[in-house]
């Protein structure tokens, strides 16, 4: 399995945007949460799951 650096950074950014939005629900933060944090989460999760699938295939589990 390759390094998960990109996924970590994306999730970190998404999480930070989310917590700032929860405390300061301004229009700007809501936009960041809806249109930036969500794609970051989705990209990181899909990328991680694909990597897990690849890893399991390499080990002939799948």
């Amino acid at each position, binding site marked *: 399995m390759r390094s998960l650096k990109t996924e970590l950074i994306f999730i970190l950014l998404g999480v930070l945007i*989310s917590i700032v939005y*929860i*405390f300061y629900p301004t229009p700007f933060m809501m936009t960041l949460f809806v249109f930036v*944090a969500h794609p970051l989460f989705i990209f990181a999760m899909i990328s991680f799951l694909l990597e897990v699938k690849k890893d399991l295939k390499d080990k002939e589990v799948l």
Partner: protein
Amino acid sequence: MFTETVQLVQVLGVVLVVADLILLLAIALKGGKVNTVVKRLAFPALIVLPILIAFLGNYHVFETSKKVKACMQCHVMKPFANDMLNDTSTTLAARHYQHNWIPKDQCYGCHKDYGLNGTLKAKLDGYRHLMRYITRTYVEPIQYRGEFQNANCLSCHQQTKAFESVEMHRPLSSQFADNSISCMNCHGRAHPSRQFRTPGHPHYKDLMSGPASSQHSEGNTEELKKFVESLPNN
């Protein structure tokens, strides 16, 4: 109740975010090596906790966006909200607010079309408004896109004694249902007129500065009379 829910969301948010940050840090400290420990930490750090945080954030979006305070945060909505909070105003929104006819979430109460479609449409419209606001691609005074549904009024008023006792309502029931006649045709403006909300208009400054300094009485009897007289007779 609202404050309690928001506080609960905030506390839960902090707990989940701190937990996720600890896991992310633990993975990062392994310096890019993916061993069994990292694999075990990665699933909660990259999947479970982010899903919970996103769910919490979305719940916060849905809950806070119903509040009048949330609507007031946008510059373009200030004239509407300030007018509603102004106890000298006689617009429909102000009368509903001042008399507590809608006990909470007053903007949402009238502007969310009923049913699941209504809720979804309100949310999609909200995102569109958000993008227009953030990208500054709007022109003041803003205009209502689409058609205000009488069903939003009727869902509270229909079948009440006050509504049924007005004889004029009876022959118009089909027109109310198909929106060919608006409740506002007889009951006056819901919000300040576009003219009042235009930058540069003498009342614009009052509407923007808050209910305490609002001296105008949009929708006063004379204006209402003029408005009703200006309506076509058919």
